[in-house]
């Protein structure tokens, strides 16, 4: 099922004018921000398809910037986000791409802070719902409706069992999971969506697993103030 519950139909609560070009764009930006883990110094956003054609009229630029600052879809500051980002010293640039993306409403977001960077590609599929399709060169497919873990690790036999074992003992019910690797024994990314927020204990234990390089938590169900 593409749409999983009543609030993907009635909702989100959002600043207009377009659920796909504005609310979905906020959520795409927030995903990237949370994958980076902190406020970036620099953001480069490339728009594809309908995003490239109409981003100014729909405020997609304001929306994605708001997401990068971790605002939620109904935050009144969205209207001023580019100015607010500039005040915070975030350098943001927008580019329109002529070639088509994987979906009519696609954005590729590059965030950088110091020597850390994250590159994410996502699509806004309607009603404010999104689908992330690329993270740092890995192919993914997650919706960020649920709390989501990105676990970067080396591809080796047994590591998934170790990950799911920790999930089991820390009370995480995995609702969706996928793995992509760049090469055999090379870099891999495991994405886990859970019904519950991830507790610090679970993340700490996952980080201690051999060959786990890094973990990011994406949770769009938490408001910025509560983080």
């Amino acid at each position, binding site marked *: *099922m*593409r*749409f*999983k*519950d*009543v*609030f*993907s*139909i*009635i*909702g*989100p*609560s*959002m*600043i*207009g*004018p*377009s*659920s*796909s*070009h*504005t*609310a979905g764009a906020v959520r795409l930006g927030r995903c990237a921000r949370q994958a980076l883990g902190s406020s970036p110094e620099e953001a480069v956003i490339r728009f594809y398809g*309908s995003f490239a*054609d*109409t*981003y*100014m*009229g*729909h*405020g997609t630029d304001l929306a994605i910037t708001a997401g990068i600052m971790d605002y939620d879809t*109904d935050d*009144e500051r*969205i*209207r001023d986000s580019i100015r607010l980002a500039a005040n915070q010293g975030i350098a943001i640039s927008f580019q*329109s791409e002529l070639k088509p993306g994987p979906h*009519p*409403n696609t954005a590729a977001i590059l965030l950088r802070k110091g020597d850390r960077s994250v590159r994410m590609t996502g699509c806004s*599929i*309607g*009603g*404010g719902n999104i689908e992330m399709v690329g993270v740092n060169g890995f192919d993914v497919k997650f919706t960020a409706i649920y709390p989501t873990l990105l676990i970067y690790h080396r591809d080796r036999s047994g590591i998934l069992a170790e990950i799911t074992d920790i999930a089991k003992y820390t009370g995480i019910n995995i609702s969706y999971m996928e793995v992509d690797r760049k090469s055999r024994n090379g870099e891999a990314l495991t994405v886990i969506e859970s*019904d*519950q927020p991830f507790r610090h204990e679970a993340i700490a234990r996952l980080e201690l697993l051999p060959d786990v390089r890094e973990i990011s938590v994406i949770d769009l169900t938490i408001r910025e103030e509560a983080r």
Partner: protein
Amino acid sequence: MRFSTLEELKELCKEESLSIGQLMVKEQALETGRTEIEVIGQMSAYYEVMKEAVHRGLSEDTTSRSGLTGKDAQRVSSYMDHTAPSLGAESCTAMAYSLAVSEVNASMGRIIATPTAGSCGIIPGVFVSTQERFRWEDSHMVYGLFAAGAIGYVIANNSFVSGAEGGCQAEVGSAIGMAAGALTELRGGTPEQSVHAVGLALKNSLGLICDPVGGLVEIPCIVRNGFGAVTALAASDMALAGVRSVIPSDEVIDVMLEVGSAMPEKHRETAKGGLAQTPTGRSIMNRLYGKGGQAIT
């Protein structure tokens, strides 16, 4: 969710002697692991946002960022103050409220996507106007929103709810179907009558293309929300009177998928056809984006 078609939804309601709204509250709680009180609380908060948007659209400056639209709800509202509208006061009020919320959306105000922002006026227009008219409690309206959500859930998963995928029929059309079915339940109709209301309403918007001028959620989206509220009232009245959708509503949803899938890309939110490419539509676009700039030709 234990249902994926309107037929299954209706049968579940019948078996468990629940309204569509009551059933959806239980399903939502089950699906998300939250309590019924929590999910009702979230929907109640959403209803407050809808009422606030109606109010703002009737009282504040709703000129859009592009300057193309704004204050039409206020025009309709003041017209009603001195002229008897042909629609009758009740339908005209629903229309004005629906325009109001759509204009708040176009001017970057806060709304609830139902199911999308492009169609966000229809459900608040129908709900807030009928609540005032029939003096319903907020809690009654909140269950109505769950009913609308259940109907939308079926439409979205069997067809689509975005203009980019299925044209305006998928956005405004779906919202009208959701509002018509929910209103039928709010007025005491059976789940079966609600489901007929959905089919009756959807049949009236099949084939509607998404052709926004300049790609913006303004022309013709805002007026289509106004018309949509009126159509929802009409479909609900037909269903409550005993009019049936001879083609079952689930089959009408399948037709929406068939028609939307066959719709040319230029008529699916790209602003490459329809009203967007009329001489006037093009000249507006040139004024907004400049020739050659962010052009969508």
